[in-house]
């Protein structure tokens, strides 16, 4: 995992805690957690607890007879989230290393459990 991923996750948490989408002072908030981020980065670099075989992308597969249906429903205005809430088209359920699945699912649970451990 690259350190910018950790910053992204941690930064998201800090912002969520502050109930604000304001970007001002973001770097400062991230630096408040710099020791934890550094610990997590070194821990993961040495122990590689997040690593696994990416079966979903590293396995050869071909698609055939594709049928696509895309039906407009409505326009949404003034959304606060950058991504569709609950988007799961990149989710992985078959990873044997579950801590990785947590990270891929944009959850901080895996990271926090490592920090606790």
């Amino acid at each position, binding site marked *: 995992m690259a350190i910018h991923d950790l910053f992204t996750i941690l930064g998201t948490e800090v912002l969520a805690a502050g109930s604000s989408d304001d970007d001002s002072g973001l770097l400062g908030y991230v630096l408040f957690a710099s020791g934890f981020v550094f610990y997590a980065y070194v821990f993961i670099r040495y122990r590689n*607890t997040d690593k696994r075989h990416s079966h979903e992308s590293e*396995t050869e597969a071909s698609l055939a007879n594709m049928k696509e249906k895309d039906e407009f429903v409505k326009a949404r205005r003034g959304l606060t*989230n950058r991504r569709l809430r609950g988007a799961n088209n990149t*989710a992985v359920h078959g990873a*044997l290393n579950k801590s990785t699945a947590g990270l891929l699912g944009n959850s901080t649970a895996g990271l926090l459990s490592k920090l606790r451990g």
Partner: protein
Amino acid sequence: MSTGNTEQEIPLQHAEAHSNPASANAEPAEPVSPETSSAQPDVGAGVEAEAVADTRVFHTDDDAKDGLTKCERCGATEISLNIATGMLRCGFCRHEFSTQNAAEAFNLDTDIASLEGTLMGSGSSDIIPSAEEVLTFKCTACGAEVVIDTNNSTQARCHWCRNTLSMNQQVPNGAVPDMILPFSINKESAVERIAKFVGKRKFFAHPTFKSEFNPENVMGVYMPYMIVDVNAHARLSGEGEHQTRSYTVKVGDKEQRRYDADLYNVERDFDIHINDLSVESSSERLNQNTAENTNNIINTIMPFDVENSVRYDSNYLAGFTSERRDSNLDQLKPIAHTQAQDIARHRVNDTLKFYDRGVRWTNETVDVHGERWVSAYLPVWLYSYQQRKSNGSTFLHYVAVNARTGETMGSVPLNKGKLFLVSGIVQVVGMIVGTVLVVLGI
């Protein structure tokens, strides 16, 4: 797999239905004579299948022989893998030869779209709990009884005449797979890769590990895997969003970002053909709880070029160790099917680029119409280090090298005291700098 290869249809009762009754019913306590084994009915080298319901078994050890496997040129039994060429080499006359490519021998490269039901190699059959793991063979050179512990190898040297005895016929204990992928990266190269990997992680490494680390202790291990081809039909439905506008609004005295998006109902209906999905078939390796072990390291070095696997011959194991398969299809199918669903979900993303805000699937159905299972030994250079912690517990760390691709991954024990100290310093500096930045609103 083409049904044209199905020559017989015999009800399958798990692994008891092997076409090799003497092998399947072998009484390990009794010496098994190689002559007896080779005297079994020759059913030919072609792929043969048994079936029950929608499960068919094709035999992968029909012409395999236990006991002394001799060099066809000089008759010696001192045969081992020449990593440089990937072929077996006689230790006396240097004659080199290899077994047939497994894909060709077992028709594994037939169209996946034609797969129906479950097709499995006989080396993938269910393990019968009563099947012995330690087998006794009679050396035909001198008559001595030689024991092979299938947990670590399928070969043993006769303690009297020094000939090497091999076990190539499948018994329902998971020791002899359908195919094997020989090592192609030698020990020197593996040692170099492991030393380089650990060398980049020395600063925070545990001092005991640093003093004891010796990459020369790496071992060549054949790990058990199941290789699966899947013919499935997938149907996914849900909602997707396409961003139409991004802008900022004033909330109080701060600016916040807002997005406009179009919402769509999305459906994708397609066939998916998955080739060579690899699943660990050792129950120990399937446990990848990183709080308990470092098995995820071995998992990470996949994939292997399994299409280059060859028919199993115990001589490929000479000089290496092996880990016996101890998981059956019933245990592995749910994992493979969940992974197949993951692959379908990810592959279909190529058709979803319009939905730049993502897609939320609310219904996913993947129907497996056909699947082909083949057991394989795949080659890994493995460095292991047993860390003894201050509380008396131990933790096993691995550094593993894929002995085909060279991909290297590892777990290095940490000097946590040193890491805590440095992290604390980073935290203090970060707090000071962060406070300044927040005050300045940067």
